[in-house]
């Protein structure tokens, strides 16, 4: 892929790129489909019930059935809602989620774009989704949606900062914002992976990531038992599916990011296991992160908005800053 990018752009190359994007899209959609099923199954098992098991063998076609149902539903737009904004909001939430996948590397040779500022690109684009959420909350002309949208905006903005700052330590250690370079710096086995030296950064990043994804315990924007689905309460049919899709694609993207930044990307945990292709290791670590996110959802209660703000600003941010300080001091001593 990298070589193709270095050559000049011909029609043939363009077609290959488009094809690659479509394939990527299909893989991500496939992932989303089966993650939704996986989540429902895992939650079910944690709650002593089997989860979906009627549609298709072992419930495999459940999400397909759900998506079909959503597609054929009536497209309701509330009468007093702000129409253009109402229609724009899901798009604004969804498009950046796909766009960020461009910079994510999945194995040594499987990557889309080798941006030198890959990490920054990710952080920047994922912030655009916040605008979509607020827009959705406002345009619905519903007080619950507005409350949910406001809460969500506050939450996402507050947690962007610890998210990015906690990664600064990793950037300092690898010397680059390029995601492939960051993974190259972790090759050699589990003791080289970033989560061990950067343990504080790892913990802060995971917590902030769960908050960015709007998942329990930080899912107050869509708190089912309080705001009755928060900012997407007025959305039905496929518009609602867009929001859900965006959430799961972000889960994909965030899990990939955690794997790449802290868990060694496609590196095998023990050097002699390198005969197993990198993609398999990547997939295993990635699935572990996804499982952890689902596990959290089944176990934790929800945190309150003021406690959430307190956690973000008073705990995570100082910790992330301390992390930078310690890393800088360490690097200064080592290098110098």
């Amino acid at each position, binding site marked *: 892929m990298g070589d193709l990018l270095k050559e000049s752009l011909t029609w043939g190359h363009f077609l290959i790129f488009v094809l690659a994007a479509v394939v990527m899209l299909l893989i991500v959609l496939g992932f989303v489909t089966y993650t939704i099923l996986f989540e429902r199954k895992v*939650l079910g098992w*944690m*709650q*002593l*019930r089997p989860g979906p098991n009627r549609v298709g063998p072992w419930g495999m076609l459940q999400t397909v059935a759900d998506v079909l149902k959503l597609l054929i539903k009536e497209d309701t737009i509330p009468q007093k809602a702000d129409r253009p904004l109402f229609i724009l909001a899901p798009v604004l939430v969804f498009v950046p989620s796909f766009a960020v996948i461009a910079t994510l590397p999945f194995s040594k040779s499987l990557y889309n774009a080798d941006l030198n500022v890959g990490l920054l690109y990710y952080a920047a684009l994922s912030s655009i989704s916040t605008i979509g959420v607020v827009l959705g909350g406002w345009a619905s002309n519903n*007080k*619950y949606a*507005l*409350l949910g949208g406001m*809460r969500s905006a506050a939450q996402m903005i507050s947690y962007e900062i610890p998210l990015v700052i906690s990664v600064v330590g990793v950037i300092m250690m690898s010397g680059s914002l390029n995601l492939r370079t960051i993974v190259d710096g972790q090759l050699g086995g589990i003791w080289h992976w970033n989560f061990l030296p950067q343990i504080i950064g790892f913990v802060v990043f995971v917590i902030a990531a769960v908050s960015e994804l709007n998942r*329990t*315990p930080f*899912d*107050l924007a869509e*708190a*089912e*038992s*309080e*705001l*009755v689905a928060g900012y997407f309460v007025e959305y039905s049919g496929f518009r609602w599916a867009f929001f859900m899709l965006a959430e799961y694609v972000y889960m994909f993207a965030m899990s990939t990011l955690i794997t790449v930044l802290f868990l060694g990307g496609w590196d095998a945990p023990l050097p002699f296991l390198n005969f197993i292709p990198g993609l398999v290791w990547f997939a295993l670590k990635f699935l572990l992160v996804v499982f952890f996110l689902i596990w959290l*959802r*089944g*176990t*934790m*209660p*929800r*945190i*309150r*908005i*003021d*406690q959430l703000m307190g956690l973000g600003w008073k705990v995570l941010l100082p910790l992330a800053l301390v992390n930078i300080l310690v890393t800088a001091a360490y690097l200064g001593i080592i290098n110098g």
Partner: protein
Amino acid sequence: MIRTEELLLNVGPQHPSTHGVFRIIVKLDGEVITEAIPVMGYLHRGTEKLAENLTFTQIIPYTDRMDYVSAMTNNYCLVHAVEKLMGLEIPERAEFLRLIVMELQRVASHLVWWGTYLLDIGAMSPFLYAFRDREIIINLFNELCGARLTYNYMRVGGVKWDAPEGWIDKVRRFIPYMKEKLEEYQNLVGGNEIFLARVKGVGSYDAKTAIAYGLSGANLRCTGVKRDLRKDEPYGIYDRFEFDVPVGTNGDCYDRYLLRIEEIRQSLRILEQAVEQFPEEGEIMGKVSRVLRPPVGEVYTAIESPRGEIGCYIVSNGKDKPYRLKFRRPSFVNLQILPKLLVGETMTNLITILGGIDIVVGEVDC
């Protein structure tokens, strides 16, 4: 020019967390509540008016449907009042059966409260665990009287059905199982940081306010007032059993949570003793005439239901139908403190506080 407006939000009548068809009109300033006005009556079925045209035994199924989560105690409340009015004696075995089903009902009701409270707070799994355990109790009741939710079990003078073969053994086996599960649940939820942060210090009031507002049950005991009708004004055979009455100190939602969990433990303790002392043989129905004609007079009796003090006030004019029947419903009285508690709280705490009061709307509306 930026200005802020007060937001008028309607919580309910259709809402996943209002525990029934119940509406609160909330005036919000951002996330802070400035005023909360509860509106009820959506589930008013006119039980008290209907009762004036029904004989006492015919009223018993209506009591089931008032507090449908804890139907046995409702049955007992009515039946106890009539028995007091008529001065009836209840056979020993019937008394034991009544006590056992009432304490099992208390465990089941508190389990439902626990599961739904945690669901409101955001944890999804304990709801299913609670219902799995409640399923065992419901199956026991099903074996006993044929119904899972609305039992119509007690009669004036005794109970309707006798315990089938092996039923007492099943109750006996349930007790250690439930004790073990309680420990598990305490490990799962009790120490959870997020949960503690959500309930500690939320919705607290002092003993004087609680007494003035007529609160009862765990809502009163969480402030330190030790009042449990099973101990203070014993009815049935409660005075034969040893159990503690847990009392809180801070009067907040966490205390109420701990109290109800402890009440489950105490109920299991009573059940243990009752099952040991259960008489092998006996009548389940006392000597009662077919047509119940209480003498002219009136009576007010109250018992301890899982929600608080449920009372029945009967005015009888000598006929077989009551002249006036009034139920003092604990959820109705306990809910009065909600508007006072909610001023100054956030929307999230509304759900926490409302869940902590433990209401059943069927009882609020009667």
